[in-house]
């Protein structure tokens, strides 16, 4: 309790008066926490708390120390994995691995808590840093490196962060509103950073251990994704059975980090991929197919985890076949689509016609039959040159049209081929004028039956006398002007 009161006093000294009410809340929370006997998982709301030890207690627990001790022993022993037919749950090694998984989840939580602690401390110095560097461990490393330095050009962040982020960080630092921390607060922040890094290395050790036993615990899963990723998946999910119960879409996201995109789009940034992106299969897939590959991997690794969770196939054969399947599928996606073959035409007239005749067909034919005029235009008289639209045989030829010799311009309509009903209606319509008595009406009836013939009276007169037939060029004509004397 002495440390608590001390820290409260320190708080009072540090904080400005407008944060006094916040402090009161903290006080209450802290007392609650003290009452919390288990203390395994610190309450997230109590994190504003000033003293690191009261916030993160995992390292002090018996369980943490026991497991870490065992892990180190086991790692020192090396892998002497026995494949006897003992039930898995009774195997002490398996128990240890299950504990390790639980512990790694706890460590992960602890790291988050410590991260919050560091953020609270360091916010006064560099408020923007937490939005630029999301990952707790990265954040801790950067904080440790920067310390109280105000000019970031003097701090070499190379190797801690990607170069693009380094640039953003140093640019932001030049305009930051933060002030250097007092020595005491800085010391606390740096201690917390050390704590976070220690926890991280402990977690790494646990994961290394789990990884080394992965071939025994989850042979199928490690065949699909590799033992390192399998260990991480199991650790994050909280054990093999938890992983087996998880849907594939969640497995895909296990270990997904929030990323700083620095204003770039999410389209190409592998946004929603967790630990599966570290698998060999994922890395060897071209970027355009990675998302698909990831879904596939997640699905198969879930299946493999389910097999492992009931010890369905201790040899890992099923997992290897899953892996082959995935590889084959990815290869198949990359094949170009089959070339398009030109489709040969069917032989003409190879299949019998579908229309054979009948009343309806006959009617249609009648309706679309050649007219007399068109028939005449298509026909040529022997020895008589046709007239044409442009003259002298140019343009469209008229055939026998207008050449009948009678001077006919209009071809008389033949007997109508329209159906009886239509013809009757047509007649009724058109005979209207014939019975009229007004002087303006004509007694001439235009009937569709007979048609009307208009003749050019001069055509007859010219036929022998003048016109083309008696010119200089005509075959019968002579030199008309010159008379033989």
């Amino acid at each position, binding site marked *: 309790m002495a440390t608590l009161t001390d820290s409260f006093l320190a708080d009072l000294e540090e904080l400005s008066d407008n944060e006094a009410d916040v402090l009161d809340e903290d006080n209450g929370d802290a007392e609650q926490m003290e009452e919390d006997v288990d203390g395994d998982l610190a309450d997230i709301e109590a994190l504003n708390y000033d003293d690191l030890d009261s916030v993160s207690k995992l390292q002090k627990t018996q369980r943490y120390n026991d497991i870490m001790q065992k892990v180190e022993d086991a790692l020192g022993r090396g892998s002497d994995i026995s494949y006897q037919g003992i039930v898995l749950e009774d195997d002490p090694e398996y128990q240890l691995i299950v504990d390790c998984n639980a512990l790694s989840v706890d460590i992960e939580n602890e790291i988050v808590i410590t991260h919050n602690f560091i953020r609270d401390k360091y916010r006064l110095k560099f408020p923007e840093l937490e939005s630029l560097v999301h990952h707790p461990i990265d954040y801790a490393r950067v904080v440790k490196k920067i310390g109280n330095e105000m000019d970031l050009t003097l701090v070499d962040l190379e190797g801690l962060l990607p170069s693009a982020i380094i640039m953003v960080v140093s640019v932001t630092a030049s305009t930051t509103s933060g002030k250097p921390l007092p020595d005491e607060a800085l010391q606390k922040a740096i201690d917390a950073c050390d704590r976070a890094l220690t926890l991280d290395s402990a977690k790494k050790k646990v994961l290394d251990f789990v990884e080394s036993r992965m071939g025994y615990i989850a042979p199928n899963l490690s065949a699909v994704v590799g033992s390192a990723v399998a260990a991480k998946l199991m650790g994050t999910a909280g054990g093999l059975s938890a992983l087996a119960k998880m849907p594939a879409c969640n497995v895909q996201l296990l270990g997904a980090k929030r990323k700083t995109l620095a204003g770039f789009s999410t389209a190409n940034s592998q946004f929603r991929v967790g630990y599966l992106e570290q698998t060999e299969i994922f890395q060897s897939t071209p970027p355009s197919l990675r998302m698909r590959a990831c879904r596939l991997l997640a699905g198969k690794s879930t299946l493999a985890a389910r097999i492992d969770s009931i010890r369905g196939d201790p040899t890992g054969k099923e997992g290897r076949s899953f892996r082959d399947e995935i590889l084959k599928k990815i290869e198949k996606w990359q094949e170009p689509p089959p070339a398009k073959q*030109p489709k040969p035409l069917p*032989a003409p007239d190879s299949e019998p016609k579908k229309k054979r005749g009948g009343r309806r067909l006959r009617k249609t034919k009648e309706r679309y039959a050649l007219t007399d005029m068109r028939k005449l235009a298509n026909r040529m008289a022997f020895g008589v040159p046709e007239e044409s639209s442009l003259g002298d045989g140019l343009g469209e030829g008229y055939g026998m049209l207008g050449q009948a010799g009678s001077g006919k311009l209009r071809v008389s309509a033949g007997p109508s081929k329209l159906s009886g009903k239509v013809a009757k209606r047509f007649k009724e319509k058109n005979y209207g004028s014939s019975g009229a008595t007004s002087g303006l009406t004509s007694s001439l009836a235009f009937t569709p039956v007979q048609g009307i013939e208009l003749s050019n009276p001069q055509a007859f007169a010219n036929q022998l006398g003048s016109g083309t037939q008696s010119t200089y060029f005509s075959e019968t004509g002579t030199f008309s002007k010159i008379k033989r004397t």
Partner: protein
Amino acid sequence: MSYLLPHLHSGWAVDQAILAEEDRLVIIRFGHDWDETCMQMDEVLASVAETIKNFAVLYLVDITEVPDFNTMYELYDPSTIMFFFRNKHIMIDLGTGNNNKINWAMKDKQEFIDIVETVYRGARKGRGLVIAPKDYSTKYRY
């Protein structure tokens, strides 16, 4: 594109090709692979060969390598296309005055396919002379 089409290297092979085909047209291009006109024609032939394979088969004959038919078919043009069906030469009225053969390079694939279809139809009905769907007299060329 002449390398894509089968060549016939002897008079006997030409005869066999014409004789052996039972229910398809045999189209033979007489000329030289290196000839410009032939190259143009072969381009069209090679591209339609697959399309018309159900009712016509295409062969190329080098008239220097196989001079046997030069006098009989009067092969003196750079490129000559002739049609045969069941060992019978099918004539086409193209409007050019020469009904025996196509002796210029056709550039339109569809036109060529149309001609082949017409020839096939006529030949199946036993006609020795068919009328091309399009008139190739100079009147319409320009």
